[in-house]
């Protein structure tokens, strides 16, 4: 381990993830993020904020990574929170078995479905997986009549050209989806990637200005897709309660 420009650098190839360094480092420069908890322990922790959820009309959102990568655990936690009357949401990319998704849908109050790329080739190129499963899951969810918010992350030069957007709009309409939220790319993760010594693949990619975003909104609106703008803003309590 040696010191880099903004903190310690860890040689990831040699690191065995024992995290002894984090125990010994007096300055707390290395931190082991995340803890191992069972479902009951996690729910106990989450319920500590119950009063705050009640006041704000909020609840618990499972985001990621991808929460459906741990389906059994997620279902167990959702079930316990449902028993406690806490509002839950899951944020998923949709790349999971229908079995997992439908079980989760039965236990949660809201599904935030992030649809990145509809085009098969593009999807394979940028996410490494086919979009077929993602789209078929989405279609089935729509027919289930669950509380569903479809969201489209926008990444400059990758999925925000007029062609991609019009195609996406057509596919959405075909599935009976009339309204989506946009999640414009931001680079807050860049500093975090640096901290864990990983390359940031989108280094230098600029964030969306209001004008950029307005262009996308107009293209989608013309193609018949309504934009729900509420989802573009998150309040500060997200950093506190999730």
């Amino acid at each position, binding site marked *: 381990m040696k010191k880099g420009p903004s903190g310690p650098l860890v040689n990831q190839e040699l690191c065995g993830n024992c995290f002894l360094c984090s125990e010994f*480092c*007096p*300055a*707390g420069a290395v931190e082991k993020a995340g803890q191992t908890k069972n479902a009951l322990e996690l729910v106990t922790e989450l319920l*500590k*904020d119950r*009063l*705050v959820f009640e*006041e*704000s009309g*909020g609840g618990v959102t499972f985001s990621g990574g991808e929460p459906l990568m741990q389906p059994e655990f997620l279902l167990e936690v959702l079930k316990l929170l449902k028993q406690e009357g806490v509002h839950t949401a899951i944020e998923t990319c949709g790349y999971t078995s229908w079995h997992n998704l439908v079980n989760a849908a039965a236990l949660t109050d809201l599904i935030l479905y992030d649809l990145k790329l509809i085009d098969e080739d593009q999807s394979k190129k940028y996410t490494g997986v086919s979009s077929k499963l993602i789209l078929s899951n989405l279609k089935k969810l729509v027919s289930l009549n669950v509380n569903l918010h479809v969201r489209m992350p926008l990444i400059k030069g990758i999925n925000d050209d007029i062609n991609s957007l019009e195609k996406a709009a057509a596919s959405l309409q075909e599935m009976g989806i009339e309204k989506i939220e946009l999640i414009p790319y*931001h*680079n*807050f993760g*860049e*500093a*975090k990637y640096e901290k864990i010594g990983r390359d940031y693949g989108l280094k230098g990619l600029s*964030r969306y200005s209001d004008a950029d975003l307005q262009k996308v909104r107009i293209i989608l609106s013309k193609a018949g897709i309504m934009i729900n703008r509420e989802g*573009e*803003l*998150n*309040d*500060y*309590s*997200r*950093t*506190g*309660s999730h």
Partner: protein
Amino acid sequence: MITAERGATERVKQLRAQSENTVPEISLERALLVTEVYRHNYGKVSPPLLRALAFKQIMEKKSICINDGELLVGERGPGPLATPTYPELCCHSIDDLTVISERKKISFKVSEEVKKAQQDVIIPYWKGLSMREKIFENMSSAWLDCYQAGLFTEFMEQRAPGHTVADDKIYHTGMLDLISKIKAKLAEVEKEDGPDRSAREDQLQAMAICAESLIRFAERHAELAEEQARVEKDRTRKAELLEISRVCRQVPAHAPGNMWEALQYYWFVHLGVITELNTWDAFCPGRLDQHLEPFYRNDLAAGTLDREQARELLQCFWVKFNNQPAPPKVGITLKESGTYTDFANINLGGVKADGSDGVSDLTYLLLEVIDEMRLLQPSTNVQVSKKNPDLFIRKAGEVIRKGWGQPSVFNVEAVIQELLTQGKSLVDARCGGTSGCVETGAFGKESYILTGYFNLTKVLEITLNDGVDPATEKLIGLGSGKEVQFDSFDQLLESFRSQLHHFIEIKITGNQVIEELYAKNMPAPFLSLIIDDCLENARDYNAGGSRYNTNYIQGVGIGSITDSLAALKKHVFEDQKYTLPELLAVLKNNFAGREEVRQYLIHKTSHYGNDDDYADLIMKQVFKLYYEAVNGRPSYRGGIYRINMLPTTCHVYFGSVIGATPDGRLSGMPLSEGISPVQGVDLNGPTAVIKSAAKMDHLLTGGTLLNVKFTPQVLSGEKGLDSLVHLVRSYFRMDGHHIQFNVVDAETLKGAQQNPEAYGNLIVRVAGYSDYFNNLSEQLQNEIIQRTAHESL
């Protein structure tokens, strides 16, 4: 300093500019008038009569003024910001006056004439007679050692008890009505045959003299207004002067009949209280919106006033407060309260006497007024009840997020429960509120005196040094200064408990003597007119005449002591990473050459403010020990001792007398303030902060103070206001007493960029998303700094 013009009308702009641009100056007029009265009457009449004669002399003889364009009249000194001294309380030396005029902050202009009169007249008469000197003469050597070591401060060494607030009485009672009541009471007392009959008669006579004097003071203003009207060329102004004259003949002699009269009446009473003595926290109209609302409603209905005229009157009222800076403080009193602010803290909203929602259109008008005026004084707060609409918090939030520091936010249900716990009636509790910084009181009925700050962290330092204060090297606590050994953390806490009781005992023993000195030598017959039941009891405010009497000792540094104890518990007693002597040696050397130990203590310890029970339960233990050491002890004048948790600026002074502490704090650095976490260690967001803070049993206190920092963007837009409402409502549902939002500016963010350690808790809003400032890239940080500079104020 020339400030931007603020105010709804040209008149207000001019008056406000005068208030902002006039340099505070010392006036000896009051001191000379009081000295004259004492010279002729001291020892010849009883103390209440002596004080009443002094009050009469000032009200009849002091120079008065009517400033250009003003509608509400009366200044404490000869003009705006001319500030009197109170040699009967604190007789400044010539050196004091030099310091007061030359210091960089909180200075007052002192003319050569003032210095000469102080030298020739004031000092020769008052030397040895002032309360300050009497207090220090009468304190034990143990008390003096503790005072010098910075264990506690003493509120009454330069200023008088006060710490009380007006209720609605004056708005339906003229001074003439009070005089009639006094006469009736006198007739009763004359028939008594107790040993204190003549003292009681004197007290009532003194109160009557004060009531008459205030009426005379108002008449003098009426006469001056008439004089000015005679020569005034401008017809509008002439009419205003004649109206001023009419108002000053109506009040305070009679109850007010409209909003103008109500405001002028309060203002005369305010001047009376702060002229009679230099009371702590000046004085305050309390629930101003509720008191004025009936007048406002009637005036609007009668068509004699519209909303804009009401706004102008209120803005004139605001200027009046700002014209009276806190009289000059010196020494430790300046350190504990380093500000011109005199803590008039107006309450808005809350509930009415019958428990119903107290928010009205006047509440909203007042919120607009405070934001338009943006003056240091008076301070304002919103009293938030579950019965008030969210709109009330949102409107307050619109002002708060502008970042100039007002209003603060209080929990009505908590305040009421605190008062009920202390034995107040439900109606008195509902009509109470908070004053000063955060202090709970039954307005118009309670004397709730703050007696001094108490340095909790210093007690720990002395515990770890077996009774010796490392700074003065004196043995002031229990023990003999040998190396301490504790078998367990509980044993350490037990030792802390014993030391705590020892120091509280010294503090309260001193307080009792001081209280007796005030009760016997420095009655406040004018204030006694305003606070129930001094008249009915024929007993002075300073001798326990009020319906409720409470004494507070304010605990400081709960965050610092909690984190220090958490570090000791974890690293010495549980993990045994360090032995106690080893760690104490490192602290003694202020971590010199052992920065890694300091880093380890900071980063490997649970800190209060993160909703982590490890630290938070220690906070609860310390709180309980402090509560048990103080609460319920009787005071000299028949009141009860209680605790509250607030610092003003004392956490800086208290930190300056403490060496390095086990939480990694370096020697001399400030302690944590109020019940806020140690600066920069709360890393789990505002929800975690309020949850940690709410683990303290606020309802057992008479006030706690919690500060939360935000940048303006976090609170921007409707979403920002939603968040504010949720945070406030959540904290209050957990019985939190008070929360204030410190909206940071671009300069603070630049500081955070240079010194990230100290700002680990700073959350900024980026773009529809918030993150810790430290987590952002430098480029993004710069962007936020630019935006903040642009958006704030």
